[in-house]
């Protein structure tokens, strides 16, 4: 599914600093990479390596200190406050470790939320919810509230909400962080399936090698810089998993957390 002609996302020498004149912390240093449309890419790194900062910058939640991020030909570092919401709505989908579902809405309503914000008709919302809930195997729990279902179902609901608006880029921040191994596996397989079936471009931040092994390409961050990059290619997932572990050991033997 990788399209090597025009990258969907082009990250160009971005830097991010925190703090003031007294104490400055460099979170990202000259990070550059491309993501092709339909690609499933993972970013790995130790705690404090800058992976969430990178995700926040790409998702327009945070601003870069320098450099450019081009998504589908548009430099998102130059979008003003007025237009940023519309940009997120039309281009990005989010999945978080703690699901970020609204307690007061049913699962169906949580999934429908981005569409209602975009002003999609209720008939269209219904069709899309039926389709995505079936794909994610949550059609039986659509009328339930988040507190009535398991973590795995919550995260599938969050993923459904992220993809229902057919965004150009889906960003997942430690999506399996709050799930047990079985739920994690189900979610990752569904994400992989959707990546292949509907060509969803996924950018996932994780510290879990097993989780990352579902991606096609992995970027390793260390101290705010890209340390390494590996491709799955024709390798089996198991072989890729072991390769990831090898790279992690090269990172300095640090246990990722």
């Amino acid at each position, binding site marked *: 599914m990788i399209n090597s002609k025009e990258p969907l996302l082009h990250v160009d020498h971005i830097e991010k600093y925190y703090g003031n004149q007294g104490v400055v912390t460099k979170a990202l240093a000259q990070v550059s990479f491309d993501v092709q449309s339909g690609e499933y890419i993972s970013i790995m790194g130790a705690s404090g390596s800058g992976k969430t900062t990178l995700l926040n910058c790409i*998702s327009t*939640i945070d601003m870069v200190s320098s450099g450019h991020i081009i998504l589908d030909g548009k430099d998102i570092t130059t979008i003003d*406050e*007025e237009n940023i*919401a*519309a*940009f*997120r*709505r*039309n281009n*990005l989908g*989010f999945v978080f470790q703690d699901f*970020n*579902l*609204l*307690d*007061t*809405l*049913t699962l169906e*309503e949580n999934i*429908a*939320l*981005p*569409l*209602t*914000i*975009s002003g*999609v008709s*209720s008939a269209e*919302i*219904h069709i899309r919810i039926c389709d995505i809930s079936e794909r994610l195997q949550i059609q039986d729990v659509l009328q339930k*509230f988040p*507190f009535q279902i398991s973590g795995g179902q919550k995260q599938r609901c969050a993923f459904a*909400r992220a993809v229902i608006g057919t965004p150009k880029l889906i960003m997942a921040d430690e999506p399996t962080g709050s799930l047990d191994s079985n739920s994690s596996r189900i979610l990752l397989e569904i994400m992989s399936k959707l990546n292949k079936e509907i060509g969803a471009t996924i950018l996932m931040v994780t510290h879990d090698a097993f989780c990352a092994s579902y991606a096609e390409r992995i970027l390793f961050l260390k101290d705010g810089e890209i340390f390494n990059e590996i491709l799955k290619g024709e390798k089996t997932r198991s072989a890729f998993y072991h390769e990831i572990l090898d790279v992690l050991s090269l990172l300095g033997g640090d246990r990722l957390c």
Partner: protein
Amino acid sequence: MLRELSIRNAKKQSKEYLLYFVTLVCTVSFVYAFNTLIFSDSVKALSGLEVLPYMIVAASLLIVLVMGWIISYMTNYMLKKRSKEFSIYMISGISNKNISILVFYENFLIGFLAFLLGLPVGILLSQLLEAVLLHMFGMMYTLHFHLSLFTTGLTLLYFLVMLLHSLRKNGKWIRKVSLHDLLLYNRQNEKSLLSGSVLTIGMFFLSVFLGGAGALLVYAQPFGNGYDVLAGIICLVLFLFGFFLSVPVFLIAHFADRAEWKYRKNRLLIFRGFTAKIHSTSIVMGVLSALLMLSATFMGIGTAVCLIANKNVELNVFDIMILHNGELQEYSPYEDILGSSFPIQASHTYGIYTDTKKDFLIVRNKTVSDMGRSNYYPFVEFQYDTYMRQSDYIRLREILGYEPVKLNPYSCYVHCIPALEKNFETLIEQGEKLECAGYPFTIHGIFSEPFSQMDAYGNGLEYVIVVPDQAINQMKVLYSLHVSITESPLNSNDLQSITKACEGLAKLQRNVGKSAPGSNAVTSLIDDVDYLSGKWVDKQNLSQLYSMAICLFYLAFILEITGAAILATQILGDREKKQKQDNILRQLGMNERLITRLNNRQLSLLFLFPILPALIISSCFIYASSIKMELSAFQLPVFTGNIWIAQALSVSFIFFLLFYGVYYIAARISYGRQYNN
């Protein structure tokens, strides 16, 4: 260590729950201001207000009871919100007892600061209140700021009772609570969301039925005794609680499946947020709606009481009236004293006469009976029609500044209150042989301007027949009157100095009477003296009504600020959840303006929702009480129609909503600040 922690926490809490803190300050200031009236020398000087201190003490005790419960509830609510913080203290090895001491210190500190701040505000408010009260009785008000030690002591006592009750109760809760309970508190709270059933929907319809039945019972009083009002009140209270317990489930059952409706115009978030909030706070909503209902009712009844009293004063057109019973009298000694004491604009002396005819009295009594007032006591002096000479009438109209009228010297006329005008017209039109000493009545010869007729011992009792001067030769003098219009209003001191200076003159107390031997009629002319009455004496006689109104406003203000504070704290207490929701919406691409608009809409809905049933119910109570009060205050209605009730309702509701609006604006600002932070 604990002390430092409590001071830091107290600072933090006062910032977090600013509205709660402001409410404590307001409570202290209101309690101080109203209790100042008990010890104020200027108020003590007002005769007729002897009952006011007792009323204020009774109202204060009621406030202590209600506020004690509310402060306790609010403190508990805030403590539960801090369950995470307390669990960290426990994990760090601080015992439950020490945490309860910590909470005691910090709440005591907040209370102490609220008391210190409330006192100066209370002093300002007490001056305003005193000025209004003295103005009401025509007294001069002089600005004097001083701290009354007695009032401060009493306020402190009330406040300590409220605060210590709350601290004791919550201290007990902290000493008993387990680490497990604290850690699970938020989750338990979350799980209480929307678990509805058919039974709950049934409860909704039942509550609406009870509300309707209660309103009907209070409004129409079909059985005509107190039991229907009592049953109505019980139905309405059940309605309030039943309504708030069931309305979210009813709304969800009705709207949640309507995709076309809920997915349009961002209704989904408002609808779900609103129903969830009402559901999780249904009991609190019921309580605060009841508080607001009571507040609006007290305010409305207080306003109605003031309107009735003011109308009474307004209809009494003469500043001074001196009555001499049974014969005409020379009033020149009184005139000299009055003239030397106050600038008199105009005065006149005349007689009120009686005969053995009662044509008009029969119509008047029938009108009174038709109005539902059959059990009144008749006056000994008003067993027959009362009369006045045409020349006296023309002079009285002249000094009152009324439009001059040309009277036929051979015809009779009637001056009555508006409530009798129509029936008297019919009587004159139908009674062809109606005459007085051979003089016929003129059709359309009825006047109804205010003429000091609303009560006995004025220009007749609700009516007087104006006859040619020569017609009174055959009549008996009922009493003579000397009336004066003064240049300026008279106050309590003036009235006191008149009775002191004029020997044999006593104030007419209309509410005091004795029964005449051998009849069921009563008289207020008990002693062998001349009686002083008029606009200002009657106003003094109504001071009990004013005292009642003051206490009703006192209760209304406290209950309203309490209700509004509970609501505001409840809404603002969800800050963390709300911020999380706003972040999710931002990530989903909702712009800031829309998020703010949705939050404001939800805040407005939550503020509006509890007052709607409260105002509807209080309208019933105000309407029923106003009708009753008007009938109790006068035998015949002094107001034309029920427009005056609408006036009482609108005035009180405007004040109520203005006061409520202050809390709404404060909550909105606070909400905006939280949002920006």
